[in-house]
């Protein structure tokens, strides 16, 4: 084996040379798709802003299809593969399994993503990211997605193979670290996700070339969502792992309880994917038993797990901060947190935005009865821009600021702008999501080119507030886009022009140093806290969360009760 290793002088992390190059390639490919998707976001947003109404209808639907796929599938999954390689090879200090195969997987993903984009921009595949049959796209559209999925699946098995190697070669002691365990959760969900995608996209591809005569729409929709929704759960697991990693990197924070956090990940593995059923809540033909089992009894266990993570990450930060002497009152630890460091601020805004905006709206929508109020309205993209953009995308952005020096060996350029970037992006996107949800609550449809219905025989008149909310949505979207552009400028600029850090030498053997990224971990929780609580500030935050959650939930039941008068 000709594996070469280097140790990062800043972080003490050890990189396998090929794994390092693979991480760079996947992360860069992801960022390129973020750029493309971001330009498309601008066009889509300016079209949904009634005062601007930029694109004609057909271009709008083509652009929206490309935005959904480039962002949700290509940007996120390329970056996630980089995270998987990092969490296995780097964190376990071992060589990556089958690096050649990993390059093949990367090539498949790249060819697949370019193929799908070509198909979309030809203009005959504007089927939206969900591509519901019987709408038919060009065969190259399905083929591109299939190639991409195969590549991603191979990468997942390379991750698992690396775990096996690390165990066999004894590069770590005891259990794998919590962050790697989170990545394992993401990987497991990815295997199910991609397999479901293959099960439905392969027949659909054959149908598009004429080899199969018919695809049942309900069957398509059911199996497609095992892919479409579960892929969001890969994101959740991955960004939660990133939160834990950043808490450890920025504070040397240790999880409050490894056992509790791991059990929460186990709940994800068992239950998170069942929630896919919320996409079929209004479909006839499937029983309420199936819907209710999959979306409530099972899903709430997964929601519980998210609440555990949402509590233990800030909790561990609070304990670490209190140990450092920021022990006054409830919130000194938070006030004195490094808010000017984008690694921390990005992570924290991601956590709060994901929990308060994405989490609460998700549970509301996932309730069979309440779903009727907002099904297929702008509320839905409002919800998932809070989860997958404020949550996942911002967490990945925060991680990038750590990776630029550690992985790419460059200094981050424009540090002043980098400081503001998470606020622009996170707060802009948070407001964007809220205004979208507001418009959705008034019934404004998602994926709708013209809510004024100009020239149509059966117009519907939306209240003026809906127009106002769409305007506010667009303006906040623009703020977020400035934040997104700043991220792209900083990352691409740093890779091209950032000051090179001192060169490192590669050697043949690994250093059997035991895992301690960043500062040394804190041993116990004794001696800090208020009134017997180790993390009282986090406890108060959790209570605020719970109260908002319960209030909002019941407000929506009230709303529902007013939809149809009984007298």
């Amino acid at each position: 084996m000709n594996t070469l290793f280097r140790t990062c002088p800043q972080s003490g992390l050890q990189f396998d040379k090929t794994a390092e190059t693979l991480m760079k390639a996947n992360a860069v490919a992801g960022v390129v798709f973020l750029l493309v998707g971001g330009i498309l976001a601008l066009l889509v947003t300016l079209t949904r802003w009634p005062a601007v109404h930029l694109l004609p209808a057909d271009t709008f639907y083509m652009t929206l299809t490309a935005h959904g796929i480039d962002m949700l599938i290509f940007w996120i999954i390329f970056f996630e593969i980089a995270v998987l390689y990092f969490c296995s090879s780097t964190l376990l200090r071992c060589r990556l399994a089958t690096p050649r195969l990993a390059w093949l997987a990367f090539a498949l993903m790249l060819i697949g993503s370019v193929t799908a984009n070509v198909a979309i921009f030809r203009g005959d595949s504007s089927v939206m990211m969900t591509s519901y049959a019987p709408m038919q796209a060009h065969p190259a559209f399905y083929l591109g997605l299939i190639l991409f999925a195969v590549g991603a699946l191979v990468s997942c098995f390379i991750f698992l193979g690396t775990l096996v190697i690390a165990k066999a070669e004894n590069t770590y002691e005891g259990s794998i670290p919590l962050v790697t365990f989170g990545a394992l959760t993401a990987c497991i969900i990815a295997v199910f996700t991609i397999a479901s995608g293959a099960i439905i996209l392969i027949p659909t591809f054959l149908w598009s070339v004429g080899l199969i005569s018919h695809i049942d729409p309900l069957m398509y929709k059911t199996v497609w969502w095992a892919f479409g929704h579960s892929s969001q759960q890969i994101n959740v697991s991955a960004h939660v792992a990133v939160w834990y990693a950043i808490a450890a990197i920025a504070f040397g924070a240790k999880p409050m309880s490894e056992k509790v956090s791991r059990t929460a990940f186990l709940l994800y593995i068992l239950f998170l994917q069942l929630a896919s059923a919320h996409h079929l809540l209004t479909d006839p033909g499937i029983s309420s038993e199936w819907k209710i089992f999959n979306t409530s009894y099972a899903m709430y266990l997964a929601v519980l797990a998210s609440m555990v993570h949402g509590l233990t990450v800030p909790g561990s930060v609070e304990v670490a901060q209190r140990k450092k002497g920021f022990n006054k009152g409830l919130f000194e630890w938070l006030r004195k947190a490094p808010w000017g460091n984008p690694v921390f601020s990005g992570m924290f805004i991601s956590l709060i935005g994901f929990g308060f905006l994405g989490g609460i709206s998700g549970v509301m929508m996932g309730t069979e009865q309440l779903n009727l109020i907002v099904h297929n309205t702008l509320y839905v993209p409002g919800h998932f821009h809070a989860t997958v953009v404020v949550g996942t995308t911002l967490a990945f952005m925060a991680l990038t600021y750590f990776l630029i020096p550690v992985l790419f060996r460059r200094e981050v350029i424009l540090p002043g702008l980098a400081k503001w970037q998470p606020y622009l992006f996170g707060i802009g996107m948070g407001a964007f999501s809220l205004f979208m949800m507001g418009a959705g609550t008034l019934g404004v449809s998602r994926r709708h080119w013209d809510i004024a219905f100009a020239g149509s025989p059966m117009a519907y008149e939306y209240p003026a507030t809906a127009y106002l909310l769409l305007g506010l949505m667009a303006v906040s979207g623009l703020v977020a886009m400035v934040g997104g552009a700043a991220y792209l400028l900083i990352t691409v600029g740093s890779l091209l022009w950032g000051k090179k850090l001192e060169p490192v030498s590669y050697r043949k053997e690994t250093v059997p140093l035991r895992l301690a990224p960043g500062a040394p971990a804190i041993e116990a929780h004794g001696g800090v806290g208020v009134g017997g609580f180790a993390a009282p500030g986090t406890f108060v935050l959790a209570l605020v969360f719970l109260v908002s959650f319960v209030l909002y939930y019941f407000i929506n039941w009230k709303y529902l009760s007013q939809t149809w008068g009984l007298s």
Partner: protein
Amino acid sequence: MSNTNEATPPERIPVMQHILDNPFLLLFLGVAMPTVFYIVWGVMEIVTIPVAK
């Protein structure tokens, strides 16, 4: 010191930790659960919808 090492029996690892330490068992569980409850159950309901005459 070496005596005490020999005297203590190897530390018993809790069952739960055994499960959490086995990635392939977790992989099996994580694929089996949604396959059974979501896909198989869902698809069975769809294929038993009577066809309109």
